[in-house]
């Protein structure tokens, strides 16, 4: 306890120097810009700006990078809500309820809700980091390939409740997503799969091209078809929206807190990341809620679930990086590369040898979260003006944003074409009731599901018993069975009640 307090005071001393606060603020502004720009997101922001930090002292560099990361994550949610184009993969799940809210004219409420939930998620996760880092590191290390596979099964089970009207159609879309995830070079053997002999598919289907196409362009086409009827009325932004968002969060406090914990626990696992965490939290909260039918139609708790969990998960991802030196996420991989250049040795001894760096980072997490929050909230009136742009001006801009997003993924025309194809496909899916979100989830989880499955079997000598003999994986698989059971039992109960009412 005492060393935590002394650590925190050291962190405060490091963070609250004028230069570091300024660097943090600059990082927040840049990060927000990266979050708002098509296809860049915090990850590109950090990769592009990393060389700049080589001249700064390590703790300032880390504050700068944390600021870009947090603000970029927040900025990604803004484009998800306003334009249905997720600025970052981890904001993809926010599209599901955030954009429908904006369409109903509740855009400001949605952004306020997102900002408040992410502040709560991020702050609680930072507190968890301060007090629980060593045990969490132990917990993170318990997950080997079989445990990860079981976790992926549990993630799909969380989404059992997300099925559309037809179960068969949901299965088709899930499998289509898993197949898309197989496209490209197979990590386990190096074989090129599902490329139909075409070189352009070697690097597979990028997650954001699918999401941006399906959500962004697909949505544009649907709205164009509805024509003038789709005109959205955006009332003036008032403080009432802000207060309302706080009231809603207070009403759903249990949901926000449990999703924060879920997101944090998933985020801490090296390799899992914030994107699956946000989808899991969404699916989990939906199947636990009293009114699952409201979800996906602009229901504020949907935004709370995804935003609190993805911020908690992004903070959680720092835990294995700082305590163990393990690059659990692409961002951590970049930062660990940076740490070597700053002259630090990442690894389990970083906590002891570089307290200024570690505690500076932790305290900066709190500060930067608040800075990003203030910045995001103050942007809302401006953002709502964007939404007032006539639809016929906004449409081509959205289309170009989506296509640039596709291009930036790998700087190739192939991704642009993919985005367009996914857009048209998304339009048809929406019209014929094929649910899009299971497909997106499957693309996110697919690769890891397959790799960990095959790695586990390779380890277990080809016997699936390895999933049962490892206790964590066994428990997770049991939980998944229960999670699959909930929507099914609920469906049976509903049907019985309907029958009784009919009789």
């Amino acid at each position, binding site marked *: 306890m005492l060393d935590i307090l002394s650590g925190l005071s050291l962190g405060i001393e490091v963070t609250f120097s004028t230069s570091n606060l300024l660097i943090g603020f600059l990082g927040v502004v840049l990060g927000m810009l990266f979050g708002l720009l098509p296809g860049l997101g915090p990850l590109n922001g950090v990769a592009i700006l990393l060389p700049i930090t080589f001249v700064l002292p390590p703790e300032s560099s880390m504050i700068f990078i944390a600021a870009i990361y947090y603000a970029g994550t927040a900025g990604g949610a803004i484009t998800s809500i306003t334009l249905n184009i997720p600025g970052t993969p981890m904001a993809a799940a926010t599209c599901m309820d955030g954009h429908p809210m904006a369409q109903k004219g509740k855009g400001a409420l949605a952004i306020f809700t997102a900002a408040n939930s992410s502040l709560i998620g991020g702050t609680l996760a930072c507190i968890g980091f301060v007090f629980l880092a060593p045990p969490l590191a132990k917990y993170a290390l318990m997950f080997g390939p079989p445990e990860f596979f079981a976790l992926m099964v549990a993630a799909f089970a969380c989404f059992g409740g997300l099925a559309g009207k037809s179960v068969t159609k949901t299965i088709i879309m899930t499998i289509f997503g898993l197949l898309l995830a197989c496209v490209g070079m197979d990590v*386990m053997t190096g074989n090129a799969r599902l490329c139909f002999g075409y070189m352009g598919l070697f690097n597979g289907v990028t997650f954001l091209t699918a999401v941006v196409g399906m959500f962004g362009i697909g949505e544009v086409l649907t709205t164009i078809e509805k024509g003038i009827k789709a005109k959205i009325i955006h009332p003036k932004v008032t403080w009432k929206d802000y207060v309302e968002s706080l009231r809603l969060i207070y009403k759903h406090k249990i949901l926000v807190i449990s999703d924060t914990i879920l997101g944090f626990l998933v985020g801490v696992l090296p390799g899992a990341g914030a994107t699956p965490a946000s989808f899991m939290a969404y699916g989990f909260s939906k199947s636990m809620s009293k009114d699952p039918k409201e979800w996906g139609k602009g229901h504020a708790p949907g935004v709370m679930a995804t935003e609190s969990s993805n911020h908690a998960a992004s903070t959680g991802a720092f835990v294995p990086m700082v305590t163990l030196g393990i690059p659990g996420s692409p961002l951590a991989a970049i930062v660990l590369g940076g740490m070597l250049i700053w002259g630090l040795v990442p690894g389990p001894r970083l906590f002891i040898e570089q307290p200024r760096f570690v505690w500076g980072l932790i305290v900066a997490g709190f500060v930067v979260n608040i800075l990003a929050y203030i910045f995001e909230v103050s942007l809302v009136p401006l953002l709502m003006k964007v939404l007032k742009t006539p639809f016929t001006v906004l449409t081509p801009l959205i289309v170009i944003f989506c296509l640039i997003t596709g291009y930036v993924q790998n700087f190739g025309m192939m991704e642009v074409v993919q985005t367009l194809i996914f857009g048209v496909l998304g*339009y048809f899916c929406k019209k014929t009731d094929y649910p899009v979100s299971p497909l997106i989830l499957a693309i996110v989880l697919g690769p890891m599901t397959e790799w960990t499955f*095959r790695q586990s079997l390779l380890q277990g000598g*080809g016997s699936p018993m390895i999933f049962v003999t490892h206790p964590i994986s066994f428990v997770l698989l049991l939980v998944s069975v229960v999670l699959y059971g909930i929507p099914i039992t609920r469906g049976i109960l509903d049907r019985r009640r309907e029958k009784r009412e009919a009789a």
Partner: protein
Amino acid sequence: MKKAEIFMASFWAALSAAIILEVHYIPYTKQPIGWEKGLGPQAGWFPFWLAVIMLICSLIVLIPKVIRAIKDGLAEEKAFISVEGFQAIMRALIPMIVYVVTLPWLGFYLGSTLYLIYYIRAVGKHSWTLSLLTGSIFSVSVFLIFEKALKLTLAKGFIEPILNQFL
């Protein structure tokens, strides 16, 4: 809606069939689909069986629809898309496709400008001033942010030598 439903279900069926062919039958792209003893599934196992399940599911959707269509005929009770809706979609989609196809030659900057001008003027029926202004301001700001500030190169097409002057 019947035709659209049948079309979509057949699309999934055809796609899964194509994948099954790709994974297991076409010599050039063939993958081993077995379960190696002591080592677990081979490279093609996962995609192959997924495609098989997908084929079965799409047939479950497709066959009853086809049977009903044969019984009742293909007359639609509710049209998939209204005539106006179709026209509106085509007005947006065709330029979008043209934009993507010409991207390698026109590049993002020229292409976006032309696309914006066309869409805002011809589809949106806004003034020339608005369309020209939006088109040019958008491209210039994207250029300044991406190329100038962030050093990220977007495709520039044949005007690349001219644009490089401004870097």
